[in-house]
């Protein structure tokens, strides 16, 4: 693998200009998750519209991998149902574990396949997804 594969343009773009970065005025749930192996942290806020994720935002501090992964994650799940978001999350976590995926739904998030070669960095890529799962669990009926 080359540097440019892991630090692909798309990742560099999201880390420079993270989407949905910041806080929400109105939110239904807020989750704070840390990566205890390195101390990175993310605050994730979600507003639901019925079963749908209508608004989502994150802030915190982390590396390019965790920041861009969070950014891409928020883009992926905005507007979809809790159930669907959970499915995506499982697929993403599986992908960075085994290093490949067939799932087209993961869209831009497939750039994180390469991170599987850096076991200590997979947690960076999955941090925001774990925060998402936690948020959905908390708001489950």
């Amino acid at each position, binding site marked *: 693998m080359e540097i440019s594969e892991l630090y692909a343009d798309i990742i560099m773009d999201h880390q420079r200009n993270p989407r949905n970065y910041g806080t929400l005025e109105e939110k239904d749930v807020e989750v704070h998750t840390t990566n205890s*192996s390195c101390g990175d942290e993310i605050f994730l806020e979600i507003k639901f519209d019925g079963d749908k994720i209508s608004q989502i935002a994150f802030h915190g501090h982390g590396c390019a991998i965790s920041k861009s992964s969070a950014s891409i994650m928020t883009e992926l799940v905005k507007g979809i149902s809790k159930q669907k978001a959970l499915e995506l999350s499982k697929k993403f976590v599986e992908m960075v574990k085994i290093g490949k995926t067939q799932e087209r739904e993961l869209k831009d998030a497939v750039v994180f396949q390469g991170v599987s070669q*850096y076991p200590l960095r997979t947690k960076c890529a999955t941090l925001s997804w774990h925060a998402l799962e936690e948020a959905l669990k908390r708001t489950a009926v």
Partner: protein
Amino acid sequence: MNCLPKSDIRESFPILSTVFDDGKKLIYLDNAASTQKPRCVIERLKRFYESENANVSRGAHRLGNIATSEYETARDQIANFIGANPEEMIFTSGTTESINAIVYGWGEENVKKNDEIVVLVSEHHSNFIPWQQLAKRKEAFFKVVSVRRDGTLDLNEFKKAITNRTKVVAIAQVTNTFGVIHPIDEIVEIAHSKGAITVVDGAQSVPHILTNVKEMNADFLAFSGHKMLGPMGIGGLYISKKRIGEMRPFFFGGGMIDRVYNDRTKFANPPQKYEAGTPNVAGAIGLAEAVKFLKKVGMAEILDHERQLLEYSYHKLDGINGLALYGTRDLEKRVGVLSFNIEGVHPHDVATILDFQGVAIRSGHHCAQPFMRYLGIHYTARASFYFYNSVEDVDALTDAIKDVKERFS
């Protein structure tokens, strides 16, 4: 690296072909003290230091990744070997550290004044003194339960000793003195029925008997790598899910934290919580290799082989005048440990004279002074077998014993 035990298993152990300067061949019968290492374990250490060495977990470089993943794979394999989940097993430097860790991490918090701590009189000092001293600090009762003179436990007597005040029962599944196998399942059940927690000293059982902590149902199990083909300086401690919540870390330092503030610390989750500082990565990896070797030999085959050597020893030695053979005659309740004394001959002399012939045994109190005192003997000579010992080794042993007897008669 092919770790398959050769048809001749001995060839996998470089040291076993030692011939000393005086032409005597090494006949190694001190396996209860420490076992020898197969080539694959030695080579694994070498390979680690030559091409994989780095500190674990906190690095973001290739060697760090290799070391970390090998270390955690080693944990998986060793935990699996004793029937535990990886997150239930922590690495320590050996049985002694494991038991002291229980005392500091669990005992200090949970044992109170007037509680009872129960051990057998036949415990190894490593499973005796830590509890004796804890009892002293806590003003708890330290109850030393007798065993029969043949080393076996009378379960009814044991049952009587366990009361509602009993907080801890700490017992070796196999004794290092006579190699007696205690009925650990029943012991655990009796202890639990009174609400006591159980600490199993597995130093002499894990290397010789297939171990499954879930079936055994013990709260803690301690063992040493060097007694089961592994390197020195590594061992393990199984902590059951039930107990892990009650246990505070016993060592504090790097790698076991989530957040550190000036006034407080939030700890990481187990197993990291209980592994402070740079771990013995090479040791863990070497032990995993040892475990693979043991699995290939087969634990049932190991015990079986030891029993055959033990039976053969009895066959050759039984009935010799003035020769005391210790331990129950029901050899099904024994692993391959043969403790003995020759009347009128100090066991140190026995060991030295055997050593002249290249036969390495141990003599002394075997870190079990309370037991020796209880039996009214000072020491024994002890030969202890492992699967790589042969009938010829036993012949050399028994011939040498007879020679000593004559020399001193």
